């Protein structure tokens, strides 16, 4: 295994961030989830946003890799391995975000001794485990060069990948008590997974190309970028369908919509619409831009950030207005309420802002994922590539 000096530096920074994150997590385990910005009114926050984001981000890899076989796209085969590594790492990051969000993580074995199969969260546990196993099998068989097994697995992997995003969407979309309750939730999650996942894959491939681990053809970048533009358009269309359906009757969900348009979650909504959908689509719609890696990278970054913003508005808008509203409201149960701050004990609307330890835990989890991705790529593909050996400054 060889790491260049620069890669080593990045790895050290990522490792440090991971350690800080673990430290904050220990702090959270000691004090409870009260160190986060969540409350009885807004009961899910940054962790669940990141969980949704990373489930989606893991899509790009496996879908591109399995499409290579299912739809016989030869050019995708060259990048299948890094794609599946990315997919594996992202789904592990997503699972880690669920773990840090649990208030009673020490009782998690209860999921396996007394599963309740009417719970969408239980469905998600099952499908994510299956998805993870498929990813790992894919990697192992690719490493052994068992092409026929990889091809057969692809036919299972593709529908499972679609299902992972749908089931994650149903955790939210089946809750009639919230504005999440819409049949289009699963299609939106699949579309967001496709565009953000592909965007992250493009970024990762460009990085690996720079590190000399992958030889990325310009033609492949252009064709993936074209696919990305299509996915962005589909995502935008689904969001338009949902927003129009919320707005038109003027009742019920119109209150949630006004929060998205001009209320607390408006910055996230409009950033996604303009920065995450419109701008990257316009960039990628121009054939010349798809030839330039800088432009493709810019569009990809915007798409990932846009989908991250979508997770925020999608999740948090539903927590703002309680169904049964009235003063003094709902008891928040926060640390500040507990320590005698009477004004923070009650809330008539949901508010949320992540706290510093919460943000560090999230950064830590993501850093660990990034570190795992770099190291896995170097380990699993270092031998494949001459360039890696040529560029290595010193052996690790």
């Amino acid at each position, binding site marked *: 295994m060889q790491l260049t000096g620069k890669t080593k530096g990045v790895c050290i920074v990522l490792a440090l961030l991971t350690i800080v994150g673990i430290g904050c997590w220990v702090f959270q385990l000691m*004090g*409870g*989830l*009260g160190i*986060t910005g*969540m*409350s*009885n*009114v807004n*009961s*899910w926050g940054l962790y669940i946003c990141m969980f949704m984001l990373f489930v989606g981000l893991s899509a790009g890899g496996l879908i591109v890799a399995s499409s290579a076989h299912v739809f016989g796209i030869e050019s995708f085969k060259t990048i299948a391995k890094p794609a599946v590594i990315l997919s594996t790492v992202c789904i592990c990051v997503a699972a880690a975000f*669920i773990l840090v*969000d*649990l*208030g*009673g*993580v020490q*009782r*998690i074995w*209860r*999921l396996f001794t*007394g*599963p*309740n199969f*009417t*719970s*969408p*969260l*239980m469905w998600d*546990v099952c499908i994510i485990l299956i998805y993870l196993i498929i990813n790992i099998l894919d990697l192992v068989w690719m490493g052994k060069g068992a092409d026929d097994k990889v091809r057969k697995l692809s036919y299972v992997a593709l529908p499972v990948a679609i299902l992972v995003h749908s089931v994650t969407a149903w*955790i*939210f979309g*089946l*809750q*009639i*008590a*919230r504005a999440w309750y819409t049949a289009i939730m699963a299609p939106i999650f699949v579309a967001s997974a496709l565009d953000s996942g592909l965007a992250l894959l493009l970024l990762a491939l460009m990085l690996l190309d720079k590190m000399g681990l992958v030889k990325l053809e310009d033609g492949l970048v252009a064709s993936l970028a074209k696919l990305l533009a299509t996915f962005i358009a589909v995502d935008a269309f689904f969001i338009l369908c949902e927003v129009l359906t919320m707005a038109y009757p003027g009742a019920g969900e119109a209150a949630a919509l006004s929060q998205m348009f001009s209320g607390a979650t408006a910055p996230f909504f409009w950033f996604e619409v303009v920065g995450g959908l419109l701008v990257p689509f316009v960039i990628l719609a121009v054939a010349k831009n798809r030839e330039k890696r800088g432009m493709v990278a810019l569009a990809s970054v915007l798409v990932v950030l846009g989908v991250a913003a979508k997770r925020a508005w999608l999740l948090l808008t*539903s927590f703002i207005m*309680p*169904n*049964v*509203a*009235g*003063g*003094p*409201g*709902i*008891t*928040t*149960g*926060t*640390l500040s*309420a*507990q*320590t*005698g701050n009477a004004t923070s*004990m009650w809330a*008539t609307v949901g508010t949320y802002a992540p706290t510093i330890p919460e943000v560090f835990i999230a950064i830590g989890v993501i850093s660990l994922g990034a570190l795992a991705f770099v190291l896995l790529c170097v380990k699993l593909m270092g031998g494949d590539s001459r360039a890696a050996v040529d560029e290595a400054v010193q052996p690790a």
Partner: protein
Amino acid sequence: MTKMALVINQERCIGCQACALSCKMSNNVPDGMMWNRVISVDTNHIDGARGTYPNVTREYLPIACQHCEDPACMKVCPTGATYKDASGRVLIDYDKCIGCRMCMAACPYNARVFNWNEPVRQVGFNYGDKDVPVRPRGVMEKCTLCHERCDRGEEPMCVVNCPMRARVYGDLDDPNSEASKAARAADAYVLLPEMGTKPQVHYVK
């Protein structure tokens, strides 16, 4: 079948919060949260008024777990920690709760409260009914219809302490119970029937 429930007469409610506080006391509910609240509907304040002067009204709504027949919280609980007991009450097995908060997102009534922190009590000791279990950090809790009291043949503390006798406790499946009669009245209703959870707690306006 037994379907224990409360029927709350809003016409009789004077918003004194006695039910909310006796619940908190009897069930050892930690600081910063309550299982039972009395809200003034469509206002932002305790004892708030709805409308613009001089056309104002006030509607007190005591609200806690609605002990639904088809509880959304129970359906989404991944470990089966939330369950319905033989008397039709929605209860939580604290040992099974992993603190995922699916139930909190699913409950249309914001009836649940979570132990975000190590629970503390201003007085520095546990209070209330001796049979009520102490809940650890990281688990969900909510109104239990005082099942420890009721299983001994007593009534929920909120019912006992209501000075206006606005709350009636009883079995909806027993056609002759006071609660069942009150719930059948023409002016009886349930909160948010459109959510499909079929609340057993009824209100009379």
